[in-house]
């Protein structure tokens, strides 16, 4: 039986990978992909706890996370298209119109 801490450690490493991606990359689309990595890490955690504690609640939460991820991807990519059409840039440091 694989210990639960192995799953938690795996999901934690994946979460940190995604967080690093959000922080150090400049390309807007790669930043969104890193958010997807973080959501997947959270899913692994939820499903692992659901399995080891014999409860369906974790799997339900993971399903809803996947649904939210789909909505987030659609709206985020639409925003990227709008920003790119305005000839601003796809780099996150150059999109600073709302910064004061």
């Amino acid at each position, binding site marked *: 039986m694989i210990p639960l801490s192995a799953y938690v450690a795996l999901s934690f490493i994946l979460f940190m990978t995604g967080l*690093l991606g959000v922080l150090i990359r400049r390309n807007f689309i790669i930043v969104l992909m890193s958010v*997807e990595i973080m959501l997947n890490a959270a899913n692994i955690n939820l*499903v692992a706890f659901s399995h080891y504690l014999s409860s369906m609640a974790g799997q339900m939460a993971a*399903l809803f996370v996947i649904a939210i991820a789909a909505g987030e991807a*659609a709206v985020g990519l639409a925003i990227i298209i709008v920003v790119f059409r305005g000839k601003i840039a796809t*780099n996150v440091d150059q999109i600073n119109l709302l910064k004061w």
Partner: protein
Amino acid sequence: MMMYVLFGYFATVSILSGIFTIALKNPVHCGLSLLSLLLHVAGLFVLLNAEFLFAVQIIVYAGAILVLYLFVLMLLSLKTEEQYLHKKYPFFLFAGVAILAELLILVFQTPYSGAKGTATPEVVLQTGPSHAVGITMFSDYLLLFEIVGVFLLGAIIGAIVLAKTPTGPVPEPTGQRE
């Protein structure tokens, strides 16, 4: 024994593909390594007796969301950039690695326990995992299910409104208004 081998394979490949996703320069390559990550996470779901989530992960994540990303990448035809990292990335890298090390120690020291639920593998396997997920979703989580439906409708409308081609006032054809 087989479980350990499979877990090691899925875990190693998903971590490596996660690192490739944030480290490769070409955005299309990043998307493809994200695909590999999603497929191997789906494999982990099978190890955890979550067959329905395995199917949803493959169909929705790898099939729909990732194709959306690749579509936008091809639509925008981004060039591979020279300076692809954020300006202050060494600072973020250092902070990230420090937090990673500290929390990994915590993860392995914590004794995990909690109140056990009723959905043990024997109970679930009597009717099948997808059946159990469906019964739970449409009884205990019905309100959440409906809320997610409304949320997805809002996301669709928002995406359409945002990405619609802006059409200015149409110039009127001359000479036809006598």
